[in-house]
């Protein structure tokens, strides 16, 4: 794309990625969570692909690294689910402990980030999984279309 689009994209990509990570990290306090934040992050990757072209993005973002990231996110998620197996599958075993263990007062309150037990970790795991998966889909499809254009 033109120089204007590339300059604006390289400025706005910071805000898009930070907003995605913010939605993932604050999933237990504000609307959003792992899936939504991962989708926002992947839309930042889509902005990069549109502005700079998939070949240049592919130099620093390989799809096998993304698939490793996605599989590790899935493994962390299932591992956390098995962590509560002493009582029941998906038991929130960190509530009341020293890690993310604060319990907020009932009713509307601003809350603090150090709450909710395993839910922040699950948000991070699912967010990792979704951002890597959607970015891999976008990158692989964009690469395939550019290759087909070259060959024709």
């Amino acid at each position, binding site marked *: 794309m033109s120089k204007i689009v590339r300059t604006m994209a390289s400025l706005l990509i910071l805000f898009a990625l930070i907003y995605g990570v913010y939605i993932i990290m604050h*999933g*237990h*306090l*504000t*609307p959003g*969570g792992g*899936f939504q934040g991962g989708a926002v992050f992947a839309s930042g990757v889509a902005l990069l692909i549109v502005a700079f072209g998939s070949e240049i993005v592919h130099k620093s973002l390989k*799809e096998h690294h993304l*698939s490793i990231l*996605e599989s590790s996110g*899935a493994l962390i*998620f*299932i591992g956390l*689910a098995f962590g509560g197996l002493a009582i029941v*599958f*998906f038991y*929130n075993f960190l*509530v009341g402990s020293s890690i*993310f*263990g*604060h*319990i*907020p*007062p*009932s*009713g509307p*309150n601003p*809350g603090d980030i150090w*709450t*909710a*037990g*395993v*839910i922040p970790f*699950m*948000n991070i795991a*699912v967010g990792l*999984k*979704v951002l890597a*998966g*959607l970015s*891999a*889909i976008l990158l*692989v*499809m964009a*690469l*395939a279309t550019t*290759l*087909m254009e070259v*060959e024709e």
Partner: protein
Amino acid sequence: MAVSLSIFIGFLIATAFLIHPFGYPPSEMDDYIIENAQSETGANNAVTSVVFDYRGFDTLGEATILFAAVTGVVMLFRRKKLSRIKP
């Protein structure tokens, strides 16, 4: 085939008549979650506490579907295969 299909359709119709009317027994589940989500899971966002705690198993299925979709798309658009097509 026809017998099993007719049994299945008959079962669906019978269940459609046997199901309770919409909203008739007021559900206790939502009240329970609104009352107890903050004290049980510690999350201020009750939606996230449902998604990742009360119904975590559904989220596991959702993640599995996404994983299968990504695997299929990445396998479909492999680069080596595309560059080998060139006649």
